[in-house]
């Protein structure tokens, strides 16, 4: 009887250990995406090269409810992840620009360096500037790069942490596109 008890205890501890080892500590939950919360509102200055088309400041709520929004947080110092995903995002934007809105949020960066990054990759989707990183906190962002997918009702459907590749971007876009 007691022998069996010990075996049970050891098995339970072993099972707990195994379960713990299977978990990915880098996989962090997004409260916004899990509960499909409305995308937190923000108004940020638009980076100079994009002002002609998008105006001086960008207010998210002006653009919600029409097309899905792909919100990408990045910084020029985020190497290599942000450098890997920039061409992917630009390419997708060119393909989907009449069906979805892409918005880059430059986070905790210097303006000159942000502009250089935009030029280097020839980014044509609107870019806003958040040197403090306040909007990132509202989105529960862990670190750049992170990409949020907002559906047509203005709700956050998914969050991707780390550099995004074409296939993953496509998969999430399908989820938010009508």
């Amino acid at each position, binding site marked *: 009887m007691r022998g069996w008890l010990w075996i049970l205890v050891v098995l339970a501890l072993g099972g707990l250990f195994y379960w713990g080892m299977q978990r990915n500590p880098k996989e*962090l*939950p997004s*409260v*916004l995406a899990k509960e499909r919360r409305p995308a937190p509102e923000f108004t940020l200055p638009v980076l100079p090269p994009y002002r002609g088309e998008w105006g001086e400041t960008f207010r998210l709520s002006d653009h919600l409810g029409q097309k899905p929004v792909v919100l990408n947080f990045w910084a020029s110092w985020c190497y290599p992840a942000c450098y890997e995903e920039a061409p992917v995002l630009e390419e997708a934007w060119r393909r989907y620009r009449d069906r979805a809105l892409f918005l880059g949020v430059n*986070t*905790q960066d210097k303006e000159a360096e942000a502009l250089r990054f935009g030029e280097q990759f020839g980014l044509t989707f609107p870019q806003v500037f958040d040197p*403090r*990183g*306040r909007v*990132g*906190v*509202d*989105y*529960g*962002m*862990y*670190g750049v790069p992170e990409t949020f997918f907002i559906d047509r009702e203005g709700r956050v459907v998914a969050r991707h942490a780390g550099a995004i590749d074409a296939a993953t971007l496509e998969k999430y876009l399908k989820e938010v596109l009508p």
Partner: protein
Amino acid sequence: MRFLLLLALLALSAWAQEPAAPPPDLSPEVFAIARELRCPVCQGESAAESNSGVAVEMRRIIAEMLEEGKSKEEIKAFFVERYGEWILYAPPRRGVTLWVWVLPVLGLALLGLGLFAYFRPKKPLPPELLEEAERRLKEPPT
């Protein structure tokens, strides 16, 4: 007298070991709250210790909220709302994370029980067995 002097010196040095004062622009209260929040981009560092951009911004938000007259609980709730309970350095004492608090105590209790069972005074031997043993000891070896 010398002993007293030594004691005073020791006390003085202990006093000098107090944690370094926070930068003058943020109040110690900001750091006290930040110490209970996790820095999202760090490994095992609180928002008070880290100098990463997010942690600096978190301290700035805490300072602003304190200025607005928000309480410590309100500020912590603000971050939990955005990051989930993961952001709290100490897991809450309810739900699944209650186990984190209970299990060590439970483990210690089990260990104590095991040790007690192992070292428990054994039952005395029956008297007739003892008598028999004594009798045999006294017997001359054959």
